[in-house]
């Protein structure tokens, strides 16, 4: 089995799986009906992308695990999502800020991956990129509206940014897996990705009149399976049905 490729796909798939689940928690709780629908639509796209990614991961692994097995039947330490996506929803401003920081990473990532030497990754990226452009536009516009909005909305999204900033560096985590895949033309420069992300984030936050925190401390661990306490609660809910009724389908 191609261990590096499997590991990479799980990282890619777990980010969208966990963020998709977080967004789905807004279902029926959105601040306005249109945003309730928007967040659940985006959740659906993310979970759909996860389906394609984890399905392929299962094929690469070659042990007969399906996308459902991977999504519902792994233990916490086997999840490889970044800590950013498992952070709680907070208020609408927190959710939009988390989404924006992620979309600003995911969009250029897929723009790179459409040129992957791995045909299946290129296909998934081309499909997902079209959706991600909508997500990015949605979250970036909200960050600007809220940041450059009322005193209260400004304060709330600034606080959200201050809280979430320490989880952003981890998206650019690089180890031997990335170096191996990059040498094979399957993935591309994380350095370029980070530069693009920084430019986008700076430009949007400037428009939003928000200040990038200067505190340099950054968390990591998610890519190695070391998560915050939040992931356990997410998995308890996500996996409940499959654990209680193994093999259940509908």
């Amino acid at each position, binding site marked *: 089995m191609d261990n590096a490729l499997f590991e990479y796909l799980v990282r890619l798939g777990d980010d969208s799986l966990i963020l998709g689940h977080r967004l789905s928690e807004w279902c029926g709780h959105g601040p306005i009906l249109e945003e309730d629908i*928007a967040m659940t*639509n985006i959740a659906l796209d993310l979970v759909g992308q996860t389906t394609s990614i984890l399905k392929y991961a299962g094929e690469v692994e070659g042990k007969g695990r399906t996308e459902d097995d991977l999504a519902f039947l792994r233990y916490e330490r086997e999840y490889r999502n970044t800590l950013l996506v498992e952070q709680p929803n907070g208020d609408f401003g927190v959710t939009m800020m988390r989404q924006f920081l992620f979309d600003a990473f995911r969009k250029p990532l897929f723009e790179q991956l459409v040129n992957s030497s791995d045909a299946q990754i290129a*296909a998934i990226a081309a499909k997902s990129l079209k959706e991600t452009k909508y997500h990015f536009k949605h979250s*970036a516009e909200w960050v600007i509206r809220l940041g450059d909005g009322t005193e209260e909305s400004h304060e709330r999204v600034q606080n959200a940014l201050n809280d979430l900033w320490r989880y952003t560096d981890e998206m650019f985590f690089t180890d031997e897996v990335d170096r191996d895949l990059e040498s094979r033309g399957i993935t591309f420069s994380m350095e370029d990705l980070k530069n693009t992300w920084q430019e986008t984030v700076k430009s949007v936050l400037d428009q939003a009149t928000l200040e990038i925190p200067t505190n340099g401390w950054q968390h990591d661990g998610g890519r190695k399976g070391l998560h915050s306490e939040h992931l356990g609660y997410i998995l308890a809910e996500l996996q409940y049905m499959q654990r209680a009724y193994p093999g259940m389908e509908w």
Partner: protein
Amino acid sequence: MVAKERIWELMEEVFDPEVPVLTVVDLGVVRDVNFENDSWKITITPTYSGCPAMKRIEDDILEKLKENGIENASVELVLSPAWTTDWLSESGKKKLKEYGIAPPVAEVDKSVLFAERPIVPCPKCNSKRTKMISQFGSTACKAHYQCEECLEPFDYFKCLK
């Protein structure tokens, strides 16, 4: 053996579960029909990654073939090339409008923040004085609009390229 044309005809009788005026051929979801290894293979592609209708479409296609005596068939889902609203047939766009859903219009690059919204004519009164209520509508493929002339709220089948 039935002709390939016959299979395509049958595909024209399979409707999209979420927009039931469109067939899966109008929608551009059926990409190919082939006979290989003694079996018909229908190749389909999803509109959106998370489109919950795909499984249903797959079942409906097999059901339709079965009703017509074709048992040896399978459906394959492919992601590439990725679906685009350019594949909606002209008759499909017409049917959408008659059904009350505005068909896709050409849009600028979606990455441009606060870009001019495309002008989406009202499917009821054709007025161009319409406004977007939400970028995301009743399903992943639609946005929500309202006509400022006749006040009709309507779905817009948004452009995906």
